[in-house]
């Protein structure tokens, strides 16, 4: 299989941008699956972790992912009003938006945490979001191996 055209690779062949996507299995995971099945043009910068509900992705976990040195984290859930778990995604949205605020407070770009509620259900939507997200992360100033760790 040929590499997609939009791949951003460093000289050693590894993706320059590393991100992780927590995808709700009822919505964004379906989109991710379709994007793959239909062989859409996808960046190689991310890995998808399926979750039962986006509300299960607590802010601590996102911070842990950033502490691993990832450039970006995406949390994708169902549209607001369409959660399978008693509207859990509304409170998840509040928590994760506060986490974005917190990243901004200490000087990290809030766009490093991508939130999507129901806008990644179709394959082309997911692929579009990931292309846009990778482009944003590529444009941000590079960080050390650990985002905030000692220099």
């Amino acid at each position, binding site marked *: 299989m040929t590499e997609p055209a939009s791949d951003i690779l460093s000289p050693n062949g590894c993706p320059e941008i590393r991100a992780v996507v927590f995808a709700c299995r009822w919505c964004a995971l379906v989109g991710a699956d379709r994007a793959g099945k239909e062989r859409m043009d996808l960046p190689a910068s991310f890995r998808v972790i399926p979750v039962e509900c986006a509300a299960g992705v607590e802010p*601590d976990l996102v*911070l*842990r992912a950033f502490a691993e040195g990832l450039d970006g984290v995406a949390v994708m859930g169902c549209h*607001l*009003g369409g959660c399978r778990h008693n509207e859990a995604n509304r409170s998840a949205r*509040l928590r994760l938006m506060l986490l974005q605020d917190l990243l901004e407070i200490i*000087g990290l770009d809030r*766009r490093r945490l991508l939130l999507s509620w*129901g806008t990644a259900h179709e394959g082309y939507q997911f692929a579009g979001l990931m292309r846009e997200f990778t482009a944003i992360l590529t444009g941000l100033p590079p960080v050390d191996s650990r985002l905030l760790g000692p220099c």
Partner: protein
Amino acid sequence: MIQGQGNIMHNAVRDKVRLMLAGREVVGVLGLCGEKKGVVPHVFTTAEDTARLVLEPKWPLAKTGWIIARAFPEGEALGMVCRGCDVRAVEELVKAGQIRPGALKTIGVSCSAAQAEVCLCESPSVPGEEPVAGIDPMSMPAVRSLCLEPDRLDRWREHFSRCIKCYGCRNSCPICVCPACKLEDDAYVTTGTLPPDPLTFHLIRAMHLADRCVGCGACQESCPSGLPLLPLHLAVRNALRQREVSLNGAGSLSLMTAPGAEAGTLWEDTLGGRSNGRRRA
């Protein structure tokens, strides 16, 4: 003049403490006791003892009160000389089921405007007393330089690199009373490395406190490395206020259980996609 006012307040508080002890409502009253070289927390049990009660300097006592009173049987209570932040902390502890309602009886002492400026305090007065004007922390240079200036990441990096992971911030915090703590979990904070990764140490703490923080500044006070932790928590509170989340509200226990806002159907993402009621094409 100010000295005189201080004396009047001091006497009034001492009278309240004596009244509480005489009425046998409480087993003792926790307050500050003047010593030759400063002050120490002390449980006053007799009227004569209260001669040594002092009000200054500000020393948040809520955590100490909780340690003493959490094991009290039904009907037993401890009095506590409280600042505004202590009163809020006791309310939070009751809400979280960490202490029986009424187990800590508060005797409120409002802080002065000067003290409020030192503490970056938004609400220095206690309920039922003459209101004292608080300050907006986001207008203070100490907070602005850390939370709004473009070079703030470097400042935080420098500050966080001085952390010696003594857990003083957590141990002195009146809200941090969970029996199990993520900061002791190897999955988040690695044993044996210094300084800890600020993302999984300080930011996890900031997220856990969020709307429950009472702004007492005990964390910053107890930090041996002088980390500016209070501005971090105050900035989080400010962010929540802008999102119209009630702070220290009667209903919500914490963000983990807070109901989300905005009813109705909404498709949105933080890259700008947004539509109401109808799926985005």
